[in-house]
């Protein structure tokens, strides 16, 4: 497995005709857009920014990065890139586990699906071969049953299954794809696109392959340097010592609650008070944790497997009670019972849905019910756990109120004439950091190219004092440049494709060194930032062409007009307009639109 060969084996699958062919990606695309997210966006742009996301002309790309499947730490990731049916923007979502690594070991760098199969199919990949096979037997099945079916058929050894559940088949607009039972391409509705194409699963069988690089001594050395930073006890990634490793992502719950940045009751409040404790990572670790699974080549092992011991869901064993769903289904819905949160997350894994979007759809409906805007018999009370569990199935099946919520919180709020109660940007729901208490995160939500997103510019790392470039979370000044820097850095790491959490220890230097040695070429930290900037601008160019013009970067008025009432951020709102002015100046954009000169300077046009 020669790492510098990356990009030479992209499989194009026409689902309409069943034809599969392997082609090299254009060399200048690989040079400019690196791999993973960047290269995937370039392929999706080629299909056209104006396509119907659920029509056969939309393109569904699964793209590895040049480091995927190698021995580099945290390199078990790939990007799924398509035009989102939820937002109408380009979207990319990333998955941990082993599917990405196995695709590389099987001899491929990416999969580009076009068209629409006449009947349900799955792609089977092994030893440099790909075939489309009949998925009739698993159509209608959940992800867990689908994975079990393929394990039965192909054995468990070296097998990864990435599948959609009923939500994807029914084109729930925030349907996910899940591999290894519980690692998802979570956001943006990539599962609905797979469902629209009748693509049930991608099944890959491949054992580990060793990387070949021009200088194996240097390769060992740069990997050791990166691993040392990941292991450093000062970093949250430090195995079994750092907060992320010990408690998983939900180590965040108590701190965002403390600083008044934990949206509660559909962000009407900014803290969950003492009730945050029972949905926190500490509580889960002390009461429910049974295992710490990991992904390919990752010593951090942030995944947390839990077992529910009592109550109606006793015996449920699942992973993971991540921070995002613990918030979206927890404080956001006024629910402090982690057992019901675990239950709904597991339903989302099985039915193939994004629990961030689902929790926000619930909280919209709860606020609407409280205010009397919902038809009689369709109400949903704050914190009604049994109703949330039942409604999750109904959303996946598009039944009853579930059919309304299946189109996401923005459309659900619009359907009752109150779009203002959807906490969403460009149609995608906000995640778990209230922009009144973490101002840079708000700017990140507004300017994310895939709709509201915490991961495109994870400036929380600076605002929470995790990385050395720490900043005051309540200060708006300086956030424009900061958000741009984080967006560009993450655009690059998402293209390598390394786990986002590597950035809690590594930076542009470590990325550049590993990439340079793997590819056998010169590459410096400044090249990392330039490539990241190019990829971010490419996405924005796609969105501009898809109809997102001036003034598209917004936040819900609740964040800019209703002051926080909780300690830590009391009295604060998001100063979005001021931050946006700074940001556009740093980006050299015209009110959110990339000028032609900028596209040319970056080599996009």
């Amino acid at each position, binding site marked *: 497995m020669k790492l510098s060969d990356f990009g030479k084996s992209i499989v194009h699958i026409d689902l309409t005709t069943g034809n599969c062919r392997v082609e090299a990606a254009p060399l200048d695309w690989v040079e400019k857009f690196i791999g993973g997210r960047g290269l995937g966006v370039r392929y999706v742009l080629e299909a056209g920014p104006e396509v119907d996301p659920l029509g056969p002309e939309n393109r569904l790309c699964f793209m590895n990065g040049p480091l995927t499947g190698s021995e580099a730490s945290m390199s078990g990731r790939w990007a799924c890139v398509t035009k989102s049916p939820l937002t109408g923007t380009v979207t990319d979502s990333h998955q941990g586990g082993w599917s990405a690594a196995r695709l590389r070991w099987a001899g491929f760098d990416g999969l580009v699906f076009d068209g629409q199969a006449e009947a349900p199919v799955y792609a089977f990949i092994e030893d440099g071969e790909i075939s489309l096979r009949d998925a009739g037997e698993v159509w209608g099945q959940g992800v867990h049953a689908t994975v079990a079916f393929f394990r039965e058929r192909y054995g468990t050894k070296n097998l990864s299954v990435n599948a959609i559940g009923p939500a994807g088949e029914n084109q729930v607009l925030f349907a996910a794809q899940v591999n290894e039972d519980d690692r998802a391409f979570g956001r943006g509705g990539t599962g609905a696109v797979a469902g629209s194409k009748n693509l049930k699963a991608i099944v890959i069988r491949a054992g580990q392959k060793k990387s070949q690089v021009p200088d194996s001594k240097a390769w060992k050395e740069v990997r050791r340097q990166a691993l040392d930073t990941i292991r450093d006890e*000062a970093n*949250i990634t430090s195995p079994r*010592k*750092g*907060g*992320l490793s*010990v*408690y*998983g*992502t*939900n*180590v*965040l719950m*108590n*701190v965002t609650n*403390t*600083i*008044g940045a934990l949206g509660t009751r559909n962000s009407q409040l900014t803290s969950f008070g003492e009730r945050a404790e029972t949905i926190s*990572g*500490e509580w889960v670790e002390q009461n429910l944790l049974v295992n710490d699974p990991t992904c390919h080549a990752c010593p951090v092992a*942030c995944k947390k497997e839990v077992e529910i011991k009592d109550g109606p869901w006793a015996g449920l064993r699942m992973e993971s009670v*991540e*921070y*995002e769903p613990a918030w979206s289904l927890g404080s956001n819905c006024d629910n402090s019972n982690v057992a019901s949160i675990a239950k709904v997350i597991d339903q989302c894994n099985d039915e193939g849905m994004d629990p961030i979007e689902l929790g926000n759809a619930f909280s919209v409906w709860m606020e609407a019910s409280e205010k009397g805007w919902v038809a009689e018999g369709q109400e949903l009370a704050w914190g009604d756990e049994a109703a949330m569990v039942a409604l999750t199935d109904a959303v996946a099946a598009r039944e009853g109120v579930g059919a309304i919520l299946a189109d996401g919180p923005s459309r659900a709020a619009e359907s009752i004439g109150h779009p203002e109660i959807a906490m969403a940007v460009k149609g995608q729901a906000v995640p778990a950091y209230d922009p009144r208490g973490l101002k840079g995160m708000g700017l990140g939500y507004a300017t994310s190219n895939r709709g509201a997103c*915490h*991961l495109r510019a*994870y400036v*929380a*790392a600076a605002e*929470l*004092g*995790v990385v*050395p470039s*720490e900043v*005051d*979370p*309540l*200060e708006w000044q300086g956030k424009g440049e900061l958000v741009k820097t984080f967006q560009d850095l993450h655009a690059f790491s998402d293209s390598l494709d390394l786990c*986002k*959490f590597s950035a*809690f220890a590594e930076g542009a230097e470590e990325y550049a060194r590993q990439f340079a040695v793997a590819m056998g070429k010169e590459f410096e930290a400044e090249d990392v930032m330039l490539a990241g900037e190019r990829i971010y601008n490419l996405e924005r160019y796609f969105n501009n062409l898809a109809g997102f013009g001036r003034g598209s970067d917004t936040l819900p008025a609740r964040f800019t007009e209703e002051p926080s009432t*909780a*300690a*830590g*951020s*009391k009295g604060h709102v998001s100063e979005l307009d001021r931050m946006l002015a700074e940001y556009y100046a740093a980006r050299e954009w015209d009110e959110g639109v990339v000028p032609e000169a900028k596209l040319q300077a970056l080599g996009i046009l």
Partner: protein
Amino acid sequence: MEIAFYATLERLVGQRRVELPLAPGATVRELTEALAANWPELGEHLFEATGELSRRVNIFVAGRNVRWLEGLETRVGEGDAVDIFPPVAGG
């Protein structure tokens, strides 16, 4: 005065909350010195060799990181919650 510890610092101290015999108006310097005297291992986490507040802790008084207030000279007012975290983030 009650102080709360979270995540790996809760493990280190062995409990979520501790009581210190300090009156409202005490500074964070007084508070951290009292903590270091009672839990020497915690003390190593609280301070850099230079005596400055360590990057390995974030101390919040009434929800504000003291780094953005007066640092070690920040005063803890009547009723102000004091919460001490290691650096934490996730996704």
